[in-house]
């Protein structure tokens, strides 16, 4: 990697951290209903929404009511996404006449988008009509993100209040997060992306003549549209000549903007942000990458402001940034080292002034190694899951970084809202362990952490682990699970482990070689996504309710300060130890073996 590569990495981290304070301050104002420009302009419309829905904005909810509202809203969203996919052929804005989505795939996508995972079992341009992309997918991109942020704000209120029965009003938090935070940022980002060449149109796909026509082997189909196979099971093909290129377009920019900002990640096109219409230039790439971590980072400052001690927010942000930068360095250097099997074939993989070199299979020229590896690390640190390169073709160590970042529980930045509430839960576990070591009742932000809080925290930490390992084990044992694997050897196991790591932590990125658009994976991964989202939200809200009711204890001599470098490294230690102890055996069977074989170490 050259000096310019380092410059790009440093610029990214610096801009991200510089924006955390202003945006974090703005978000705190929105959620605490202090005057900001947009919530004054939008106030009449906001009141109209409450009136139509029969909501009294000043009326607060207990944690159980807050949870019920969240669940009803998510259920309504899931059903709407399912219905729109099944009915799309009968609905307008479907110029390519794309057929109704199969039930198992429609269920998977509905679960995926309502849980802010945005795993894509389907290829966007060949499956979803423009109407489905807008009304089903774009809407969930907004509201599932806003719901995650609402739950975080409820948890923060749990710390900020004392002796309180209520933790806010879900409908109000949802509406404000959508209207004043996600929507304005999306409009600005969408237009910036169009300026770079991201498409935004309702016209049908373009047809252009190819400069050189291309001959290829066309698979023969039987009467049912299934590929014909010969006696040996190989597909039967015939020679064909392609003279024109069909170019898929669509209203992409509006969806991509919120896909990045809301840690959603579901692309408009099959190959997500590696598609030249979804991410055409290095500048669009920088903005999209920035959008991945922007809100999760800024929410740390919001947290500090709302609990009345901004050092607490920055301590957590520091822990996240340290882990992120360390793993980023591993990913970039593994990818830059290239693929040793290609070196023997007369291929030049060395970085120079005229090429990025490195492992370029599944990467785009305009991004090269640095921007591909940076994106892969950011998108899995956050539970975004969009990609600008194909993780399935990464080197074993390069791909282990994104996989492990997901397995850490999506708390290194994590999803909007969900990442920080996950990290706060880890902070609770950390003060508990510290309390055991020094023999005192643990406290966090002035609240005593007792048996109930630790039980809830344990559920939040353990459920994703159980989902990932249990799901992987099930898939490996079943014929239907093994059938989806595309690559031989240890890499095939990694494909399955990656899929469940992604679904079990609501990330959504994939080793795309895995044929996951089949009934087994659609169902299993759909269930895992639902479980991992809502069984983390419920204990988090229970935690919020319990904490809000507690009195604040004054800081004493025995209080462990939670804003010091010591605590930051203790927190990092807890996150990494839980993540390592749980996943090193599984990782040893996948990327570690693959790495040893790749480098011929016996």
């Amino acid at each position: 990697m050259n000096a310019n590569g380092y410059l790009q990495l440093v610029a990214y981290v610096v801009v991200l951290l510089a924006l955390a304070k202003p945006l974090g301050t703005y978000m705190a104002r929105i959620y605490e209903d202090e005057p900001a420009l947009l919530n004054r302009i939008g106030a009449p419309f906001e009141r109209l929404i409450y009136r139509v829905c029969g909501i009294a904005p000043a009326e607060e909810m207990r944690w159980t009511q807050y949870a019920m509202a969240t669940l009803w809203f998510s259920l309504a969203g899931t059903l709407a996404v399912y219905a729109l996919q099944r009915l799309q052929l009968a609905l307008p804005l479907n110029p390519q006449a794309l057929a109704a989505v199969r039930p198992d795939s429609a269920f998977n996508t509905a679960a995926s988008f309502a849980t802010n995972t945005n795993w894509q079992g389907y290829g966007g341009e060949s499956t979803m009509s423009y109407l489905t992309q807008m009304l089903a997918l774009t809407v969930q991109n907004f509201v599932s993100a806003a719901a995650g942020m609402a739950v975080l704000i409820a948890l923060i209120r749990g710390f900020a209040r004392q002796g309180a029965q209520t933790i806010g009003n879900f409908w109000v938090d949802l509406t404000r997060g959508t209207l004043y935070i996600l929507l304005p940022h999306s409009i600005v980002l969408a237009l910036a992306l169009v300026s770079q060449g991201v498409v935004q149109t309702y016209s049908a796909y373009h047809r252009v003549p190819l400069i050189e026509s291309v001959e290829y082997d066309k698979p023969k189909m039987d009467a049912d549209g299934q590929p014909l196979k010969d006696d040996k099971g190989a597909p039967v093909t015939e020679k064909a000549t392609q003279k024109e290129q069909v170019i898929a377009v669509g209203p992409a920019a509006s969806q991509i903007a919120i896909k990045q900002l809301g840690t959603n990640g579901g692309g408009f096109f099959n190959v997500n942000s590696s598609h030249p219409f979804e991410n055409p230039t290095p500048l669009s790439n920088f903005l999209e990458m920035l959008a991945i971590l922007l809100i999760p980072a800024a929410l740390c400052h919001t947290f500090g402001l709302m609990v009345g001690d901004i050092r607490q927010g920055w301590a957590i942000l520091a822990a996240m940034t340290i882990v992120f930068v360390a793993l980023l360095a591993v990913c970039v250097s593994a990818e830059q080292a290239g693929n040793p099997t290609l070196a023997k074939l007369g291929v030049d993989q060395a970085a120079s002034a005229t090429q990025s070199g490195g492992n370029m299979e599944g990467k785009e020229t305009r991004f090269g190694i640095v921007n591909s590896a940076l994106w892969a690390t950011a998108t899995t640190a956050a539970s975004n899951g969009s990609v600008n390169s194909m993780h399935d073709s990464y080197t074993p160590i390069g791909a282990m970084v994104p996989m492990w970042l997901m397995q850490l529980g999506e708390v290194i930045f994590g999803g909007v809202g969900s990442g920080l509430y996950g990290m706060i839960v880890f902070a609770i576990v950390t003060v508990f362990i510290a309390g055991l070591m020094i023999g005192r009742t643990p406290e966090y932000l002035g609240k005593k952490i007792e048996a109930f809080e630790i039980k809830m925290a344990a559920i939040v930490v353990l459920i994703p682990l159980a989902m990932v390992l249990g799901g992987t084990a099930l898939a490996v044992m079943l014929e239907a699970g093994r059938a989806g694997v595309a690559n031989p050897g240890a890499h095939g196991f990694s494909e399955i482990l990656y899929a469940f790591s992604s679904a079990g932590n609501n990330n959504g990125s994939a080793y795309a070689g895995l044929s996951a658009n089949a009934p087994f994976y659609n169902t299993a991964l759909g269930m895992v996504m639902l479980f991992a989202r809502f069984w983390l939200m419920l204990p988090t809200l229970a935690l919020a309710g319990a904490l809000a009711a507690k009195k604040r204890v004054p800081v004493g001599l025995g209080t462990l300060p939670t804003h010091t470098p010591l605590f930051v490294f203790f927190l990092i230690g807890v996150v990494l130890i839980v993540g390592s102890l749980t996943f090193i055996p599984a990782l040893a069977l996948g990327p570690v073996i693959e790495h040893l074989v790749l480098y011929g170490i016996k």
Partner: protein
Amino acid sequence: MLTELRRALLMLLLLTAVTGIAYPLAVTGIANAVFPDQAAGSLIVQHEKALASSLIGQPFADTKHFWSRPSATSPHPYNAGSSAGSNLGPLNPALAEAVTARVKALRDADPGNAAPVPVDLVTASASGLDPHISPAAAEYQVARVARARGLDGQRVRALVAQATEERQLGFLGEPRVNVLRLNLALDDLR
């Protein structure tokens, strides 16, 4: 409980109207007013007919043209209606086989050029639609294209330089050559 369900349905309906209808339509309206060419797909138009999109690559196999990166879309390469990467793992024998065949094809088209092949020229892109190759991959092909067209190497290099896009803002991304623009410029020489 049912009150909350009714609120959920109404809220979803209203937020759908805002984020699923008003928002994309507003972005489309502004985008088409301010950036109409980009919003439509950056098409290269000649005599009122779309010739190509400058952002979407095409396959080339003629020795007179610069070759693009390999594409893994199916059923034919550079299928811009169904983007895809190869998703081959680094140890997959199919990857080594494919790269060997691509190196051989490049060497057969340019006998005597024994330089190592720049990696992007023999590996499939993520999208299968990558419009670019690295400057190194362009330089590797300059002698071949110049010979096939009976042109001076410097003349071809000048065209490569014109089709080269530098790092954005001086430091973002990688320098790259737009193969489609380069080949169109070569074809226009006649």
